[in-house]
């Protein structure tokens, strides 16, 4: 690490880069994250963009830390504005204060009020003018050089990262980029930075650089998925793209479908043939899939849908996160159609939960919905490698002795052995009609009930183990949440503990079927509960109420996306609860 004695050293730091699309703040952010990772740091970068297709306003928000972090801090140590074009759109996410440093190009417009009013220290760097000092230099590389220097990133890690990212672009571009880095470093030389990252002790643990969407793709193939059909939709497309690149390497295949009606049905067709299948989408696409998901329930065809949630209803806010598809994930089917609904609660957990979803869908011959969101999916992080699990696609298949084979036999554990095309003697016709054990359609209420009972039983009797939730802590004060809001909740809980509070956290991973017994048990000591979710309607809270008795003193912190829920917000919510108690 370079030395910069006049600022305080730290093991953790938050920063952001803003600028209009052409300025390349996302690439700059990724370079810094990757370089910090190479310098043995953990870290996270989230993206915020405006509606413009290309060239609109953009912000890359980073947190770098010596310990694993997956959520942004409440505030920034450093904010670098290559320009101020519509940056006020992100004002509620880019919080600076009198401990923050703000670096801006004086030629790119006035510093906005929310910055000047904040008390942050302001420093001018003429990024645009600097580009003229080396032919081909770009403002974003200059910014990378500047930031790296200010926060004390190892120069060789930054250079190596830039080389790697530009690998395929030719020597000339690399040369210009390295010159840009140098320009930035020089500009930083006489600046007092914010805190400086301390050097990490060696040796360090291995880490991965991965986005939540890539992680979901990996989880799918770890679970045994070998087929994907998909239709592009923000913010899920990167899962599809990752699978398009990697399924063929694993002997699998991906089909770009004409729409979501086709993609989900293609998946059902593949799965009917014995190939574990997945599709990825977001709210509008998911809405188009609910009919086929009902078919999967009735015909007992395993299939996994990853819904990377964004703001809704309707087209909503395609580029920003929300946790408001819980209702449709759980209840989006006509008829009585309980299904598996799971939610990853960290970027690394996107691997694990998606893998588990494949395993469960296959074991239970059921559709499974994985509720990820834009916050997890499009964030890139340096994380500890997700643990390997031996969850694989293991379908209960019909044996060789298929005499008198009945596809929907009323099995005690609710899971009827499945025959696959190619198995002689197993021939049957899968159907969305109510049916007898033999698969023969039936309009009889008795046959109907027998299959409904059986399907209920398969969920009730399965041992989901302890993975249904992450539970941590004890005491009478608890936070209950799910999905990506777990990340600020974890941090809030840690802060409360630092202040001496006994507090527990439950993050539910298996939302449906909900393990009401275990949840009730986990909440046994709880007298004050804060439910945290990123939805306007409090969908999670209502869902919990429909299944269990919540403590009388339950508060709800529900906020639609993309309004931030920070660790600080949750701490405030908890303080209210504890204050109330004191009063």
């Amino acid at each position, binding site marked *: 690490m370079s030395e910069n004695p006049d600022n305080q050293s730290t093991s953790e730091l938050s920063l952001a880069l803003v600028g209009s699309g052409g300025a390349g703040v996302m690439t700059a952010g990724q370079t810094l994250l990757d370089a910090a990772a190479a310098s043995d740091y953990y870290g996270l970068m989230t993206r915020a963009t405006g509606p413009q297709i290309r060239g609109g306003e953009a912000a890359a928000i980073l947190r770098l830390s010596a310990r694993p972090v997956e959520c942004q801090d409440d505030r920034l140590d450093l904010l670098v504005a290559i320009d101020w074009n519509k940056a006020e759109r992100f004002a509620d996410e880019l919080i600076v204060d009198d401990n923050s440093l703000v670096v801006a190009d004086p030629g790119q417009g006035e510093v906005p009020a929310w910055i000047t009013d904040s008390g942050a220290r302001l420093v001018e760097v003429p990024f645009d003018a600097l580009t003229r000092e080396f032919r081909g230099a770009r403002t974003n590389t200059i910014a990378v050089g500047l930031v790296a220097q200010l926060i004390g990133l190892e120069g060789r890690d930054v250079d190596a990262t830039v080389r790697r990212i530009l690998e395929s672009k030719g020597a000339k571009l690399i040369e210009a980029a390295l010159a840009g880095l140098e320009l930035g470093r020089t500009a930083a030389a006489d600046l007092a930075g914010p805190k400086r990252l301390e050097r990490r002790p060696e040796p360090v643990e291995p880490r991965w650089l991965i986005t939540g969407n890539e992680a979901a793709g990996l989880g799918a193939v770890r679970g045994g998925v070998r087929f994907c059909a998909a239709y592009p939709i923000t913010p899920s497309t990167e899962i599809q793209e990752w699978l398009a690149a990697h399924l063929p390497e694993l002997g699998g*295949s991906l089909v770009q479908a004409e729409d979501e009606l086709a993609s989900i049905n293609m998946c059902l067709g593949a799965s*009917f043939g014995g190939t574990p299948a997945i599709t990825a989408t977001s709210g509008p696409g998911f809405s188009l899939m609910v009919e*086929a998901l*009902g078919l999967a329930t009735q015909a007992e065809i395993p299939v996994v849908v990853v819904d990377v949630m964004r703001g809704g209803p309707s087209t909503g806010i395609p580029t920003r996160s929300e946790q408001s598809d819980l209702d449709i994930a759980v209840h989006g089917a006509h008829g009585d159609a309980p299904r598996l609904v799971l939610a990853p609660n960290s970027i690394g957990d996107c691997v694990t939960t998606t893998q588990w979803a494949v395993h469960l869908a296959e074991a239970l011959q059921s559709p499974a919905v994985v509720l990820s969101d834009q916050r997890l999916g499009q964030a890139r992080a340096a994380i500890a490698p997700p643990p390997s699990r031996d969850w694989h696609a293991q379908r209960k298949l019909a044996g060789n002795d298929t005499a008198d084979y009945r596809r929907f036999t009323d099995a005690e554990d609710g899971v009827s052995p499945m025959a696959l095309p190619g198995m002689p003697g197993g021939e049957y016709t899968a159907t969305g009609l109510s049916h007898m054990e033999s698969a023969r359609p039936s309009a009889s209420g008795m046959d109907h009930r027998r299959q409904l009972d059986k399907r209920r039983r398969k969920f009730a009797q399965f041992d989901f183990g302890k993975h249904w939730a992450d539970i941590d802590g004890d005491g009478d004060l608890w936070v209950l949440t799910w999905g990506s809001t777990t990340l600020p909740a974890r941090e809030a809980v840690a802060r409360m503990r630092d202040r001496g509070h006994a507090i527990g956290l439950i993050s539910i991973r298996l939302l449906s079927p909900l393990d009401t017994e275990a949840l009730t048990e986990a909440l046994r000591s709880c007298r004050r509960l804060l439910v945290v979710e990123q939805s306007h309607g409090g969908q999670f809270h209502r869902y919990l109420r429909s299944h269990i008795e919540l403590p009388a003193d339950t508060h709800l912190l529900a906020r639609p996306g993309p309004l931030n829920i920070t660790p600080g917000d949750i701490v405030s919510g908890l303080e209210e609860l504890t204050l109330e108690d004191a009063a």
Partner: protein
Amino acid sequence: MNSAVEQQIRILGHKDFKSDYKPVWCAGCGDFGVLNALTKAMAALELSPENVAMIAGIGCSSRIPAYTTVYGFHGVHGRALPLAAGLAVSRPDLTVIATGGDGDGFSIGGNHFLHACRRNVNMTYLVMDNSVYGMTKGQASPTTECDWTGSKLSPQGTHQPPLQPLELALAARAPFIARAFSNSPNELARIMTEAIAFEGFAFVQILSPCITFRPEQLGWKKRVHDGFEPTDDRAAAFAALAEDEGFTTGILYRAPRPRFAPDRREPVDIGAIEKRFEVRS
């Protein structure tokens, strides 16, 4: 998947392809003829029931899979083709036959039909066309004549020209396009046999009267005549259709082209893929 399953050489008759379920069809429905011809075609092709999958949507006609002894999937309305595509792409060892009615295939399922023609996955698509929604008791379908006033839902007619399945298939680049009649069992079985044997997407429109809601279709017997000569020239095929009033049978167009095969890459194991995520310094 199937490679492990030992294949027995059996010579099956067409009755071996017929299940013992009694069809829900009305006595005299054209679909009986389709079922018969299909079982004959499967026997003629010496297929094994376990290696065939029939995929259907919803409608009277779409009930056909369960009346055979092959694997079947009776999905939801209009989605037979994507179900079949997913199966055929992931299990190229199987013989995949998608099927259904004119409502299922050309109304709610019209988009998949278009894209299936282009995509050219290796499968067969048999549409039992009776120019009506039989299952829901007699509404106009896309192929219904515009002046048919027999439906309570369009008592003054459909106000639109009937859709032309063959012309659409041709415009959408289907490589095999034919028409047959449920009441001409031998020609029907022959055309089905060729369609199933064809490498790629083979589409057959089968005129199959609905005697309950379109009893006048009994008159089709007199109007149907063979006439299409297989060509691989699109212009010639369009020209043949310009002459056709909807009752010419035969193979209209046959022009094999590379069938859909998804991306292929050098195989690696998952560990190698995971390594790419590791932080390099």
